[in-house]
């Protein structure tokens, strides 16, 4: 995994750099739009962490140029939450996600992981959430070292939730995806599957919780250590 950080504050580059390298990824850090463009032209990155306010221009311009070249490298914009127009402009320009400043290391790593997982040719296809590991190739679900015995539907539901860890998975989306595995699934059947999945996971220290967001969907979240 090789990441590019475009951020004008030298101290923030150092701090983020330490976090990223501690997670086992390589990081190139630059301070201007021009340097960012040079780096993107020379190297193929798996993820770009992009500050929007840069000394020699707007980070969004760099992003637009990237997307114009049909480069689909995921981009995590480091921006101001609540700044409505900035978020809209960023969406239009093709950012994949946002991380509001100030952020903490946990948030940064979680968002970065989520984007790296989304990458189509990810070299690390094993899904992680808390202590849970899911290998799509072997369909093994582990908690730590133990392999969990799950019914196919439960495993499918867990896979979808793990791909969306930290975000709400819409109930309708879950319905559609599970229906591919099986016969048509009613909303009630989904609830049955989820409650069984919760019971299966209950004995283990998974470090996660599956929350029902009534009226919207389900949320698999990692519990604070």
């Amino acid at each position, binding site marked *: 995994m090789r990441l590019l950080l475009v951020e004008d504050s030298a101290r923030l580059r150092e701090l983020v750099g330490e976090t990223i390298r501690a997670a086992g990824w390589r990081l190139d850090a630059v301070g201007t739009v021009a340097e960012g463009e040079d780096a993107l032209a020379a190297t193929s990155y798996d993820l770009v962490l992009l500050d929007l*306010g840069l000394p020699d221009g707007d980070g969004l311009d760099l992003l637009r140029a990237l997307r114009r070249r049909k480069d689909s490298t995921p981009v995590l914009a480091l921006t101001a939450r*609540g700044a409505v127009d900035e978020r809209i402009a960023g969406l239009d320009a093709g950012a994949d996600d946002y991380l509001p400043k100030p952020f903490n290391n946990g948030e940064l790593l979680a968002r970065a992981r989520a984007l790296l997982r989304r990458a189509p040719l990810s070299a690390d296809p094993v899904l992680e959430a808390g202590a849970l590991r899911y290998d799509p190739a072997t369909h093994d679900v582990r908690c730590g070292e133990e392999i969990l015995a799950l019914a196919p539907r439960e495993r499918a539901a867990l896979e979808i939730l793990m791909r969306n860890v930290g975000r*709400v998975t819409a109930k309708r989306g879950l319905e559609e995806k599970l229906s591919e595995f099986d016969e048509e699934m009613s909303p009630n059947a989904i609830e049955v599957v989820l409650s069984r999945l919760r019971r299966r996971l209950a004995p283990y220290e998974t470090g996660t919780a599956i929350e029902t967001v009534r009226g919207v969907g389900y*949320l698999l979240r990692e519990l604070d250590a």
Partner: protein
Amino acid sequence: MKHAAAAPLGRIVALRIMLFAALAMLTQLVAVLVEYGSDPEYLSLLALEQETDVLALGLSVQGNHLSYQLPDAHAARYGTEDSGYVARVRTANGVVLFSHCDAACTEHFLPLDLNPPSVWLRVLTPGYPLSFAGGRIIEKEGQRIFFEIAVERDTQHVVWEVLADEVLDHMILPMSLTLIFVLGATLLSVRSALRPVTAAAEQAEELDPLSPDARIEEAGMPREIAQLAGAVNRSYARTRELMAAQKLFTSAIAHEIRTPLAIIRLELERIDHPAARRATAELDELSHFAEQLVTLARLEALDRSGFQPVALDDLGRDIVGTMAPFVYSHGASIAFEGSDNPTLPGNAALLKDAVRNLIENAVRHSGPGIAIVVRTDDGPGLSVSDDGTGFVPSRPGDAPGHYKRAGGLGIGLEIVRRIAALHGGRLELERVEPHGTRARLIFAPAPSVTPDR
């Protein structure tokens, strides 16, 4: 700001000119009456001329044959007995064509055998009412006809007729003509002088004062109007400066303060001490506050342009999904209950900000372990309820300004309130029995908008 529009300048000027013209005429009239009135002999002469002119209309000439028929207009005056007026029409050599005579004729008129002068007048009693006798020769087709009248008692007010005729002929007609030309010329000048003003007003109407090249073209304007346009242009420029200053201020907070905050946040994480955790919590509060200040500042500059139909159910479901990780990580829960997906024209991002603020308020101020429910209704409205201790007022119905319990709450609710107002709605806060708080955004019903399905 909303005065009834004043009348157009043309009408104001026209009305004033007419008013002054009326005053001038009145003054003139008084002057004329005084002047004529002080000279009854001259009035008598005028009356003689006028009366004989009318009488002459009854004369007809056919070859050498003359005949006379009293005109209808004067039948009452010279055709009835004892009217106070007498008249006689004769030729120079004494042939009487018409006679409405009594003793007064022989007393006042010239003898028939006398070859009459072209005009004669004799005042019978000086002063008013007029009393005179006189005669005048009027030529018609080569014939010289002598008209004589005598007025002993002016019972039919010939004097007023004379005065009215004089006023009409020598005052009203010429002054009216002048008035018409003056009015026309003035209106024309006013209109052509105002044409650049009208053009500038239309131009200003089209302008977006915030666009960088917003200015009224001053070239080709009369000097006074160019001054006005210049003043307007300067105020546009000033507005742009203020807006630019505000943008600079908000983006300074957004970018220049956030980066140091991010650095402090990450540095604190490296310090393994409870004090660092407390400082982190304080820092989060500070970041939140700075963010709300920026939001509030940005709201000032927004208007309703760019509003689009927003379906409340979709919006509520979306924001609840977005906020759920935050809510659950704080030990609270959240759910969404939709209705018939009411639609209203609005700015979806702003409305989401409002709901997000209400959810954050509930999480921050209503105690741990609360259950939050976001509902939509057909008001159209959207409410955020919780079952916590809440920022409830001591008495139901307290003014919103009284919901001050914790720092940051006031500004968050102010943001929500302004967003609601921008959408023609309002925010209502109320206590829910047995415990909890409900914040409800109520929007104006939009009957013309139908949901897009």
